[in-house]
Every structure is written in C-alpha cells, then in structure tokens.
C-alpha cells in the first residue's frame, strides 16, 4: 500500500464523520445503536475531551477509532489513513502511532512480566532495535513518566495505582505515537495522584507534540485537559465547541446539568444547593 500524502499543516490528525456502531441483540430484535452519527475532528497537538455518563457511547467511539471493534458506518481518518479500509498489515503499522491508556492500570499490565519487559513489549512486537537498545529505551521511557530505573525490575503487583498508570503511559509512548486515547485514564486514581498524572500528561503533550482523545465522565478534569470538548449522551454528541465557549456558555441543557452536578469544595455553597434541591423535590 502506498504512503499517504503528507498532511498539510492545520489538517486535523483525526477526523470522524457520521460514525455509527450497532450491536446485535439477536433473534429478530432491533440492533442496539451505541453510537449514532458521531462527527468530530482533533487538531494536531491538541486534546479533544469526550465527556458523558456511563452508557453514553464514549468508550465505543474510542474502540472504533482504535479499531478494537468494527464500526457499522461512517468515516474514520487518522493521519491520512482511512481507518475503516486499512488491511491488517497496515493497521499494525498505524497502531504504533495510535496508542491507548485505560482506566484500570493494573488490569492492563501483564502481571507476570517485569516493568522493563512491559515497556519493551511494543518495541519487540514491531521488531524495533535489539535487546540492548530496547532496554535503554525502557529506561528512557520510565524517566519520561517520572519513574526511576529501579522500577525496571518490579512487577505490576508491587506498584501503586499511580505508578502502574505511569508505566501504562510509558508503554503507550514506546513507539513514539502521534495520538494517545486516554479512556478514563485517571478515574480510578486518588486525588493527589490524579493531579500528578494530569500534570504529567500535559507536560508530555507539550514536549512530544502529542494529540489526545481524552475520555472522562468528570467535567472538571475534561476542562483542565481539553482544547475542544464534545458532550455525548445516548450515542450522540449533544454539544461541542472550544473549551472556552463551552464552559463559559453551555448551550445544551444536558451540558448545563452536567456542569451543575460537579461538586464544589465549598461547604456553604454545596449545602445551599442540596437544600434547594430537596426543597424542590418536596414540592
């Protein structure tokens, strides 16, 4: 297959148009439409925040983009490649440029491998370098995610949640990707660790010119991380826009209700909100 033409400056690295994903429910039942006509683009080096509650279809969008599942309709372009038409060999190559980090860091790391092996696995799978250079790259990756070389010989069970998530990020960086899909990547972490990981992700994006698809149910985290934001509900995007415009003046009622639901660390303010809600419920 021929190399696609180099992309012009300003062309989005990801373009998704009218994406549809249906799941078969079997025996004469209508298929379930988990994603129903979703369109968005992500500019190079930027972050698109995809926010929605459970069941909104946001993770299914990510899985279609990563081709972990087959889309039922629509177009997905990544860095000039038609992702729905690429064959297996090409897909393998593209996958190096498109990595993912998921919610459960321990669940996504092979428990029986050492951290060094985990970090080298993508390199070995793509036949990059020899043992020595791969080991050096693993140490370099650890440093990039803020861990010391002593970690190389540890196993996942010995890591805290934050350390394991750093290793997962390091592994995602191994093949110098252009895009990283972060699917609830900080949702399982404690407050102080979450702050560290968010800071790390922002630093890595700046230093490595990474593009992120950042998926979360947490609007506060989405706001901190994203350049543009898409709000999903029931398989469709109900609102999207730049971070500034969306947070300053949300247009869709659902976006407003999500924003209002975010707890604020201000006791008198929160008490008043709860009091008002209870008074309203009591009629």
């Amino acid at each position, binding site marked *: 297959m021929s190399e696609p033409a180099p992309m012009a400056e300003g062309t989005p690295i990801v373009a998704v148009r009218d994406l549809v994903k249906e799941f078969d429910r079997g025996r004469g039942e209508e298929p379930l439409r988990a994603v129903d006509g979703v369109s968005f683009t992500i500019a190079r080096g930027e972050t698109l925040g995809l926010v929605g509650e459970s069941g909104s279809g946001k993770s299914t969008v990510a899985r279609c983009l990563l081709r972990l599942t087959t889309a039922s309709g629509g177009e997905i372009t990544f860095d000039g490649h038609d992702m729905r038409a690429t064959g297996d060999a090409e897909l393998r190559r593209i996958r190096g440029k498109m990595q993912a980090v998921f919610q459960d860091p321990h669940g996504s790391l092979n428990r029986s491998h050492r951290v060094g092996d985990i970090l080298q696995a993508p390199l070995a799978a793509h036949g990059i370098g020899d043992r020595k250079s791969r080991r050096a790259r693993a140490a370099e990756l650890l440093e990039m995610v803020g861990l010391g070389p002593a970690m190389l010989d540890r196993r996942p069970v010995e890591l805290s949640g934050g350390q394991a998530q750093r290793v997962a990020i390091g592994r995602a960086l191994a093949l110098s990707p252009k895009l990283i899909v972060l699917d609830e990547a900080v949702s399982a972490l404690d407050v102080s660790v979450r702050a560290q990981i968010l800071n790390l992700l922002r630093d890595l994006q700046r230093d490595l010119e990474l593009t992120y698809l950042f998926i979360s149910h*947490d609007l506060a985290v989405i706001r901190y991380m994203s350049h543009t934001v898409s709000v999903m509900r029931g398989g469709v995007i109900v609102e999207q826009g730049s971070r500034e415009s969306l947070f300053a003046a949300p247009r869709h009622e659902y976006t407003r209700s999500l924003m209002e639901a975010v707890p604020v660390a201000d006791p008198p303010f929160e008490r008043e909100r709860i009091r008002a809600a209870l008074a309203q419920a009591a009629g």
Partner: protein
Amino acid sequence: MSEPVLEVRDLSVSIGDTPIVRDVSFAVAKGERMGLVGESGSGKTLTVLAVMGLLRAPLRVSGGEALLGGTDLTKLKRRQLDRIRGGRIGMIYQDPMASLNPLHRVGDQIGEAIRLHTGLDKRAARERTVELLDEVGIKDPASRARSYPHELSGGMRQRAMIAMALGADPEVLLCDEPTTALDVTTQRRIVELLLRISQQRGLALVMITHDLGVAAGFCERIAVMYAGRIVEQAPVDELYARPRHPYAESLLGAACDLTLDLEAPIPAIPGRPPMPGELPQGCSFNPRCRYAQEKCRGVEPPLEPRGDGAVACYFELGSHRVAEHVPVAEAADE
C-alpha cells in the same frame, strides 16, 4: 455536642505487629453527619470495618474500642454482633451489586433483612419493603420490589441498598464511598437522599469518601486520615476555609473542580503515601510536606485540640510558611 450514638476511641488495627490504623477516635451524635476523608490506603475503610466487626484475619483490632450506646462492639461475640450489624448499625458500600444477590428479587432481599432484625412476618415485611423503597425515592415501589438487581440502574440499586440498610431502623449508618461508582448527576441525587433520611430519621451517619467536593455539602464535621491516623478533625466550614494540617491543605489544593487555573500545573502532592510498616520517622507526612522542618522528622506529633477541632502538626499553618522548601520526596517513585 449531644450524647454520641457511636463513639470510637483510640481504635487500632494491625496485621501481626504492623499497625495499619492507629489510635483513631471520633464520635457521631443522633442526626449528625461526619466525614472520614482520605486517599486509598489511609485506613478509612479498615476503620469502619473494624467498627462493624468485619475484619478478616490476619487483620485484627489491636487496641481501643467502638462504643455503640455503651456497648463495645470490638469485644462482642459473633452472635451478639450479628444482631447489631444490619440492626442498630447499618452499612452501605460503593458497589451495590456486591451486596445484592443477583438471583433474588430486590424486594425479597430487603424483606428478608427486615424479618431478620425486626421479627415482622412475611406479609408485614413486604409492606414495609414497599414503604422503604418509596422513602428512598424509588418510583412505583411495589413493582420495583419484584425487579432483579440487574434490572435496576446503578443509582436505583444504591437506593435499594439504602432501603435495605434502613430496614431494621438503625441508629447509625456507615457509608463507604456510597457515590463513587455513580455518574455525577446520580451521585448528587444519592447525596441528597442520604441527607434527607439522616435529617428525617435523626440517623447518625459516617460517610467515607476521598472526594472533598462530595463531603463539602454533606458532612458537618470531617476527620482527615493519612497513613492510618486522623491528622485533622474539624467542623466542615473551618476545614475548607482554613485547613490546619499541611496534608489537609494539600488535598484541598489538589482537587479538581471547575475553578482550576488552566495555565498552571495542578498543585499536586509529590510522592505517595507510605506503606504500613514503612512509616517515616516522625510525622508520617513529613517527606511530602512542603513545610517540614527538623522537628517533624523527630517524634510524631500528637493529635491535639485546636480551635473547634484537633490537629496533628507541630506548627500553626502559615507560621512556618517562611521555611517553605522543596520536599524530600520529589520523585514519583519514592
């Protein structure tokens, strides 16, 4: 404070000789809502499990007491405890699916819990179940009682769990991260529900959470735990407006809300909490504390009354700000 319903005094939990929870004391009165706030591994869940007599070997209560109306729960025999657990003291968990039997109808499970603790007959328990489901805001409670757990949404299941915990008309309700697994909008409804029932029933409520936003509107007092100890205890308004312990201050600073400064890094706490058995000399927080001084690396500061609460720090926050320095535990893999 009026007479406490539940009073925990110097409670400690250990594995072998390694203390995991250290000298935890708190009290809740009728109708009072207290928060036990801390990150994972801080000992907050083990504290309530110890109160409930639910610790499994090798974990054990190694000191202190948990008094429910004068009875020390930690000294009770299994059979005596069974009457109190789920009776005078109830507990709800983060994951209602883990506590509901997927093979039985929700109403039957609640009814069974009611009968176990009240001696009502089957018919009366069924009526009571419907009343409770109604009380926790489940629409069409009679038909919902016939649902199986998987037929309910996450929020509904949590409401059903709360109804089950209320079945025996408890005096105290311990809630372990009751909203953490839920969507934000559902989370809010559950917090409102818990607040309403605690007020209507005069229920003493302890909420365990890592989320300072959720605790803000719900709790009247908060105890902040770190490395197995309470490091600060204060009325909620005081804690948020003027935290006295550096960890409490850092935790408030590291929280994400819609007011975060987008141009700056989030003020994260460097390093990570110590593992039990690997506590640093002196104050457990000192390697991560930006105010730490020589004294902090000597003897661990005791939890002492200050203002309307108590703090385990040698310094008045603010007074030692001049000594600000880069903490020792800078690296993330400390």
